[in-house]
């Protein structure tokens, strides 16, 4: 019969990045499979255990926690609810019999973004603006610098944190300040703050590289491309594996070859911006990541 | 026949259990000055509040110029030409005098400071009063604030003026000037209702006297046919026919049971040397003041209010430090530690002149207010409060001072002004103080209680207390003081023994003539 799935989000489904991505994933899974879905948004850290337990008690078959902070509470309660699968996103935990996690290779995504940014920059200065330095964001940040350095060693990589995931205005102002310091390509991770970065870039007429969602539509003249982090894919895979019974209590790390991350196409004016040689370099870089020859992931 | 300006018909007002006013009827003709008398808590202020739209009567009617009116808000009363000076006045501390007068009268537009100031001066001049239009109201002492209230009431055109104890904080000179104004208004046909505890006021300026007792109007008669003793009897006994009779002997104005004789052999309790005090605004309040008070004597600090008395008392109570010179009380020196707590522990009691600012906490019960001054003595326990004892003390005080209240748990703010003052006195005199700083102790008290309080002060003196009595009332000074020092415009005259001077001399000093 119908599988009951709960998705527990730390933020709001309208954030346009981290949480929207998960929500989009579960909604498309809903169309694909015969499932019943409950989404719990804006779950403060303090509420996590309460929410997870409530879902488990109510007999949900799958409870997905979206963010590393769900890992520990899940590990504490999973044994009492063996009939429920607990899945954690953006974390690497697993436990018999019912805990699995799906993580994307954020470092590799950062590497891709860094490579592209270093290729298109005119000023030689690029910037990353993170919300709050949580592990995945730090991975992305490190990968971004690494990727950029792989293109040209004189590139200057600026990095700053907003101190909040939701303060879009401050996200925009920090972006503006990086632009004033010479950055002409910016990228951003987090939640709503990402929207601020894109707006600031658009206003200043510099380039931006999207993260997570393909954000081309949001600012066609600004978004060079997007370093995709397909969190919807995590959800799709998790749900699919539970349904066909193939899920195991282990860590699934989704990289380029597993469609966990990716690179959106270059469109609009950016289609012609890169030379063929550069495009070939990008293809090579993607191949190298896939083969494991290069990586932005921390060692 | 003229139409009465104001006619009250069977007005009643209850506050919970208390009937403040019961079926009161009263008429005021144009150009008539009526005194409203009665003991503390008789219901006088409640009548005032109902006439001025501050409170709504439970039953009864109010007619103005023959028409029935419903005065639901002060605006209703103001619009109908009723001016008022409340007993507990409401002023905005950080407004200037000029702003205070402009409030509610000026339109929403631009305020021209020059015009406002001229306005203040004009009204003040009319009653021969000195008033700085730019002074902050909060920096004035109670008497000054009272003057502002009077100016406020007179700055509008009124056909009925209601004054609730206007003279309680005025010097005799200011009171006399106020009466001149009252007479002038009377000549213009304004009706005036004046609440007072001073019978002298009644005979000085009023046409009729109405006496309340426990919410009832017990008599209403022309002043010409009233006698002082008779009015007192009516107030106290509530007996309708007393006012015209010679009346019962009462405690008021009993002669001192000991002639004023300065003591010379008892220890010095209060010693002030070359004292200089500045006001909050930096002006000089007291300069070069020096005197001693010995155990067993009452030193009167005479003078028109606003001449440094408040500053001096506050300094001696530890609330302020001298700006120069020294003070010493019971071994505490102002150049050492000088805090209210230390002085209280040394046995200093303080009856403040601004009762509602310093003396009481309106929201708290009588018994909680009782503890205020004894907080740092072991009387009510060191860590755990002995609340039972405080209630006992309060109950005793209620009996002893005849405080009109529903009991020790009633919030003190609900009491009438005079009854609040009684509790303050009871509290300060509770623990047998060695030094009593009494600023206007009988302010707002009815005449019987004044007698009782004066009696108590004398007994405290005889028991060995050193008392500083601040008063602008020469009768009170004559009744109590052994010696007197006069403050006028920052200079001190005296001290001198009462036996060596006369009231004329003191009056001259108060006016600033050496």
């Amino acid at each position: 019969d119908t599988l009951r799935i709960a998705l527990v989000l730390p933020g709001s489904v309208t954030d346009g990045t981290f949480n929207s991505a998960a929500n989009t994933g579960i909604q498309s899974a809903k169309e694909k499979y015969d499932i019943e879905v409950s989404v719990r948004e804006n779950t403060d850290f303090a509420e996590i255990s309460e929410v997870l337990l409530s879902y488990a008690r109510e007999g949900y078959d799958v409870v997905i926690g979206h963010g590393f902070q769900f890992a520990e509470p899940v590990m504490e309660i999973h044994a009492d609810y063996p009939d429920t699968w607990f899945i954690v996103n953006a974390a690497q935990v697993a436990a018999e019999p019912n805990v699995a996690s799906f993580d994307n290779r954020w470092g590799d995504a950062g590497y891709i973004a860094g490579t592209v940014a270093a290729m298109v920059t005119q000023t030689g200065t690029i910037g990353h603006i993170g919300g709050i330095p949580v592990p995945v964001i730090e991975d992305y940040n490190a990968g971004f610098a690494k990727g950029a350095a792989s293109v040209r060693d004189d590139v200057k990589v600026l990095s700053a944190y907003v101190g909040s995931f939701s303060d879009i205005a401050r996200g925009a102002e920090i972006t503006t300040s990086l632009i004033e310091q010479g950055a002409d390509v910016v990228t951003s991770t987090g939640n709503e703050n990402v929207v601020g970065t894109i707006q600031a870039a658009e206003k200043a007429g510099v380039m931006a590289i999207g993260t997570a969602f393909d954000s081309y539509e949001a600012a066609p003249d600004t978004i060079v491309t997007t370093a995709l982090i397909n969190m919807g894919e995590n959800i799709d895979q998790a749900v699919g594996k539970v349904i066909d019974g193939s899920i195991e209590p282990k860590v699934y790390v989704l990289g380029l070859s597993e469609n966990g991350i990716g690179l959106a196409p270059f469109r609009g004016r950016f289609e012609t911006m890169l030379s063929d040689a550069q495009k070939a370099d990008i293809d090579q870089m993607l191949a190298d990541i896939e083969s494991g020859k290069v990586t932005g992931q921390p060692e | 026949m003229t139409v009465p300006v104001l006619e009250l018909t069977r007005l009643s007002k209850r506050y919970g259990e208390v009937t403040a006013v019961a079926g009161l009827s009263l008429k005021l003709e144009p150009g008539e000055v009526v005194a409203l008398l009665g003991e503390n808590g008789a219901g006088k202020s409640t009548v005032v509040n109902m006439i001025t739209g501050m409170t709504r009567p439970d039953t009864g009617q109010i007619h103005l110029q023959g028409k029935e009116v419903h005065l639901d808000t002060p605006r209703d009363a103001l619009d109908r030409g009723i001016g008022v000076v409340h007993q507990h006045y409401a002023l905005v501390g950080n407004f200037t005098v000029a702003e205070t007068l402009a409030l509610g009268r000026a339109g929403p537009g631009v305020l021209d400071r020059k015009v406002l100031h001229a306005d203040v001066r004009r009204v003040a001049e009319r009653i021969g009063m000195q008033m700085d239009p730019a002074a902050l109201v909060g920096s004035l002492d109670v008497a000054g604030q009272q003057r502002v209230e009077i100016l406020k009431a007179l700055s509008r055109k009124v056909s009925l003026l209601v004054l609730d104890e206007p003279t309680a904080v005025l010097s005799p000179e200011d009171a006399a000037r106020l009466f001149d104004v009252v007479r002038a208004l009377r000549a213009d046909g304004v009706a005036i209702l004046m609440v007072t505890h001073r019978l002298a006021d009644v005979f000085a300026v009023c046409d009729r006297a109405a006496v309340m007792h426990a919410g009832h109007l017990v008599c209403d008669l022309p002043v010409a046919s009233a006698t002082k003793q008779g009015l007192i009897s009516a107030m106290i006994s509530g007996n309708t026919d007393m006012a015209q009779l010679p009346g019962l002997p009462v405690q008021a104005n009993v002669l001192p049971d000991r002639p004023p004789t300065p003591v010379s052999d008892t220890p010095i309790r209060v010693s002030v040397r070359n004292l200089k005090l500045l006001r909050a605004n930096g002006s000089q309040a007291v300069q070069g003041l020096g005197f001693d008070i010995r155990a067993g004597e009452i030193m009167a600090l005479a003078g028109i209010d606003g001449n440094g008395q408040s500053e001096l008392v506050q300094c001696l109570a530890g609330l302020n430090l001298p700006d120069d010179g020294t003070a010493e009380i019971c071994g505490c020196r102002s150049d050492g530690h000088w805090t209210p707590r230390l002085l209280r522990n040394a046995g200093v009691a303080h009856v403040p002149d601004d009762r509602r600012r310093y003396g009481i906490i309106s929201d708290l019960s009588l018994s909680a207010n009782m503890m205020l001054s004894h907080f740092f003595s072991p009387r009510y326990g060191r860590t755990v409060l002995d609340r039972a004892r405080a209630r006992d003390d309060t109950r005793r005080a209620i009996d002893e001072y005849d405080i009109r209240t529903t009991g020790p748990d009633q919030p003190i703010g609900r009491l009438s002004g005079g009854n609040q003052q009684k509790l303050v006195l009871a509290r300060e005199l509770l623990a047998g103080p060695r030094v009593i700083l009494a600023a206007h102790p009988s302010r707002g008290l009815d005449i019987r209680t004044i007698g009782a309080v004066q009696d108590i002060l004398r007994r405290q003196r005889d028991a060995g207390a050193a008392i500083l009595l601040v008063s602008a009332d020469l009768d009170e000074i004559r009744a109590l003081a052994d010696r007197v020092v006069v403050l006028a415009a920052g200079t001190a005259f005296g001290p001198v023994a009462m036996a060596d001077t006369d009231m004329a001399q003191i009056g001259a000093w108060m006016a600033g003539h050496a």
Partner: protein
Amino acid sequence: MDLMLLTGLLASGVRFAMPLLFAALGETVGQKSGVLNVGLEGIMLVGAFLAVAFSVATGSPWGGLLAATLGGAAMGLLHGFFAVRLKVDQIVSGLALILLGLGLSGFGYRLIFAGHQSIRVPGFERLDLGPLSDLPVLGPLLFSHHLLAYVGIFMAVGLWWILTRTGLGLTIRAVGENPKAADSVGIDVDKVRMRCAAFGGAMAGIGGAYLSTAQLAGFVEDMVAGRGFIAIACVVFARWNPLGVLAVALIFGIADAGQIRLQPFFPQIPYQFFIILPYVLALVALAGSAKSASLPAALAQPYRKA
């Protein structure tokens, strides 16, 4: 180059300051009349949302601004109804306003814009005064902000003038200092307070509109991110003086703008230390400015007749 950084800093500071300024000016008037509204956060959110919704609907940011102002005033009146008319606790009523604002703005946004990834919001453009804006240094410094910013500065001066120099100001201050005194001279205390509460709400609505249609061009849930509380701090800091509010908001804004500009220069210093910089400075300034601020004596105290 350094000059560019400086003008960038100041421009950013002004942008940071404006939402604070509007909300704090309104709150100043409210508090002067005795109404404490801790729910600015919620009102600003509603303002930000309405500004976006109606900018899109009318095609002009002015339509959005009008809606935000009216919506803010309505929220202010709601607070007034509970705090002034019903005389419940003002702080708790303000808290309810935060929740309502958070919820209504988020719900409205989802209702109208659900699924639209990229809506174009017609936002306020920066003012272009032609040659004036082209002046070196002074141009970007003084003549190239959003029109709303000039409105904000003008309002600060205007409100200061009204509060200190007019009969209206006298009435407002009296009601907040000693409502009984105001009552006794015939002023309808509750009516004055209701209007001030509505004005405060309207101004907070404008503050939200600035955030979503001048500083940014779009709405996200919870985008006010604590500015409502900082605005209240500005009011207290400025000692209830509108000119002071202008100064404090600008200083806060510039400190914030400065803080984020320092961050990338010192990657070895944890970024949190930069974020707290404006707050630490505020504390030092507090300690230095000695004299205690005196709040309106009847602040947050409902007026009941005897």
